[in-house]
């Protein structure tokens, strides 16, 4: 990491640490949302930006993590820590099952199969009313002790997402990440070098699922609720939009994308009921005018 980059990251870290503490509870809540979605979009970009796998069902793991927390706390009265720990585990186990089949496919077929599994989870969440509350979702989740204070919970979420993102950074720069990028660029060649590419992609899918599940769990504890809409197909586009908006080919791209997207959504939907129209227009403009993303360059690639 170069010195300027290190400086930028330090300034950003300081800003993240201090800025939201001066804001009101509403903006603290929004800041938590932005952090959580930054982690979620990062986990997605591990698949697309680094692995070249376009998952159109990533919301499944975010949602499963959230439901894991919701069901454990509301129906089984599990303690907060156990529920939060379970979120990435539940998501990873599900991702292992889905990934086992999905990584055999590539391109649009991979997208379609991850989509099909997500819709399976979504319909089950809708219909298994006893566990999930169906359409009404699960509400009334509470955080213990001092975490009730949004400012404290913000710092808690900041600590966990920073840890997770640091872990992701280590991962993509380790041989594991190098291999993943090589598979993205030329899978057959890597296979001939003796790498079990399918197993590598499978493991990546599970890891991405686990981080998405962690994000979902953190978000459920922020809103105090879980809704089936978090698992619906339109939700799967959110991490794609955030990652592309920030820049697929830059490590910190999805973080920037998540903050800009959450910021835009909060401001625009505060003024008009036509947020979807704005979002659609922004997405179309992004694809046509800024395909490299905010932080990206057209030709740049991760880590080159």
């Amino acid at each position, binding site marked *: 990491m170069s010195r300027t980059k290190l400086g930028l990251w330090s300034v950003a870290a300081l800003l993240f640490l201090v800025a939201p503490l001066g804001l009101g509870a509403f903006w603290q809540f929004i800041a938590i949302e932005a952090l959580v979605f930054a982690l979620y979009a990062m986990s997605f970009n591990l698949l697309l930006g680094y692995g070249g796998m376009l998952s159109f069902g990533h919301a499944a793991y975010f949602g499963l993590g959230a439901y894991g927390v919701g069901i454990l706390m509301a129906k089984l009265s599990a303690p907060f820590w156990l529920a939060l720990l379970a979120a990435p585990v539940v998501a990873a186990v599900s991702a292992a099952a889905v990934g086992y*089949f999905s990584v055999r496919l590539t391109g649009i*077929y991979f997208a379609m199969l991850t989509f099909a599994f997500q819709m399976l989870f979504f319909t089950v969440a809708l219909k298994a009313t006893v566990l999930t509350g169906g359409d009404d979702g699960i509400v009334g989740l509470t955080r213990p002790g001092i975490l009730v204070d949004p400012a404290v919970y913000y710092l808690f979420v900041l600590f966990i997402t920073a840890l997770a993102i640091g872990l992701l950074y280590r991962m993509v720069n380790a041989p594991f990440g190098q291999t993943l990028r090589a598979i993205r660029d030329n899978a057959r060649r890597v296979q001939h070098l003796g790498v079990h590419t399918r197993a590598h992609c499978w493991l990546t899918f599970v890891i991405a699922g686990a981080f998405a599940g962690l994000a979902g769990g953190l978000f459920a504890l922020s809103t105090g609720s879980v809704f089936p809409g978090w698992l619906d197909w339109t939700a799967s586009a959110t991490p794609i939009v955030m990652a592309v908006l920030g820049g697929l080919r830059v490590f910190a791209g999805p973080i920037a994308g998540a903050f800009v997207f959450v910021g835009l959504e909060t401001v625009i939907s505060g003024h008009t009921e036509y947020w979807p129209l704005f979002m659609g227009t922004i997405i179309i403009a992004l694809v*046509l005018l800024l395909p490299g993303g905010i932080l990206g360059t057209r030709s740049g690639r991760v880590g080159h």
Partner: protein
Amino acid sequence: MESLLDQTWQNFTLFGNPTVVIRQTLSGISHGMLLFLISAGLSLIFGVTRILNFAHGGLFMLGAYVAMSVIGLVLGGLPGFVLSLIAGAALLLLVGGGLEILLLRRIYRSAHEFQLLLTFGLVFVIGDLVMIIWDREERSVAAPELLSGATRLIGVTFPTYRLFLILVGIAVAVALWVLLHRTRFGIWIRAATLDREMLGALGVNTRRLYTGVFALGAALAGFGGALAAPVLAVGPGLHVEVIIDAFVVVVIGGMGSIPGALVGSLLVGLVNAFGILAFPSLAVVLTFALMAVILIVRPWGLFGRPE
């Protein structure tokens, strides 16, 4: 738990009742024919342009709203109904052509994620524009008198309009077959589905072909929406629901294949009709399970060809 098992057993005994079986079969086929109208266009567009058009549900929705306005504001009765079908198809033909020229032709060479995002963005633009032009109220559209009510057929009474849907579906399937096999435009479409570079190299104007295919697909969706208006609640959210069913159909039948879209539609229609009978709360789950299984064992679908 026992009562649930009892209930399921009760449901299964319905399969021994011929009236129920005939009625569910007809209802599955008629639902399937509506699905065919949406998924045929989706499949044609994917086959030629390789773009999975998420906005197709929005085009269908637009067709339904246009038909509703024609019947409500312009002309009632049977002539109004016929006019609404023509208006739905004609307007969407123009919208589809316009969208292709303005937006879609810019992304044929882009990565999958950009293609997916562009049509995804369109979903919300179309959905909200419909809400702005009309409003957020849910409405029903009356079928013309000739087609409302019920008809007795092989021992069961069945809504006349649903029978009419089956006939129209068959007519559209035949018309598409003739178009694809007996006209130059259709032969180009099939050739482009197989190898578009080669078709271009042979001197066919593929730019115009792509516009034409997108317009045709959109017109089919608009026609389907207009036709479905009397059996649907025309309201917000229609576009995001409809597209999911169409995806399932196209994946099962094979992306790019019209016979596949027909078989996939009927299959999904029937699975739904009988699934509801056996496991009322799990019927939806069944269709997605079917989609996942097909993708696992035969990713190119029942009638598609491996790439």
